């Protein structure tokens, strides 16, 4: 496992889509490589912050507001 491959595997690792063998390889690498450990921590942080924003729901009256605006034009 090298750093470039480790970076590319992040999404699959985070979504638990790696084979057990590959996951072990990634886990071993990020335990010993400070740069990749940091890369994974930052990517996880970004994904968690985005996940919070993605939970927000659009205003339930949006379509009514849009249609009213269109009718008034």
């Amino acid at each position, binding site marked *: 496992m090298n750093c470039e491959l480790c970076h590319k595997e992040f999404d699959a690792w985070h979504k638990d889509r790696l084979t057990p063998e590959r996951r072990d390889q990634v886990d071993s690498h990020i335990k010993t490589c400070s740069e990749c450990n940091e*890369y994974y921590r930052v990517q996880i942080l970004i994904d968690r912050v985005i996940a919070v924003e993605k939970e927000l729901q659009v205003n339930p009256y949006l379509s009514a507001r849009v249609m009213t605006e269109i009718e008034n034009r």
Partner: protein
Amino acid sequence: MTDNEIISSVLQGNPNNYRYLVEKYQQMVFRTCIGFVHNKDDADDLSQDIFIQAYQALPRFKGDSAFSTWLYRIAVNASLNKIRKSTLKNILQRIENFTGKRNEHETFVSVSTGEDPENMLIRQEQIEAVRQALDALPENQRTAIILSKYDDLSQKEIAEIMNNTEGAVEALLQRAKKNLRDKLSGKRKNN
């Protein structure tokens, strides 16, 4: 009814049918907007503007791409225009806040070898640091990362929206991730 059938119906004098398109795509548009503005009220207002813009532009929709792709393009352009119009005062204030808290952020995000990344906790300062790092990306990187992370689109779909190649989008995403890592770990490398 398909999207194209709804569009035909609207253009043939049934504007009320536009409501079906709004209801189908409102969460998609809102999610893109929230990626750019990080504020629910602003994202709601921006989403409303985008659907009105799309309605007005509907006669020019040729069906060369899916309606959703066309709508994404309008949403991205409107979002970029919105953030460009932010006042200079607001931008300066955010930069000041970001640089003023940089050491604090570094403490939260920096790692020691052997730590388990999955066990990190999020703090409010980290949330703000991530938002500011996203906002500081060049527009094309920011657009690509928002469409990827907020909208879960494939590189192929992003390439179509951005009128670019898949290879170019892959490169944009890689540069964006590197820039985010550099910014959030306190490094000074850019672009």
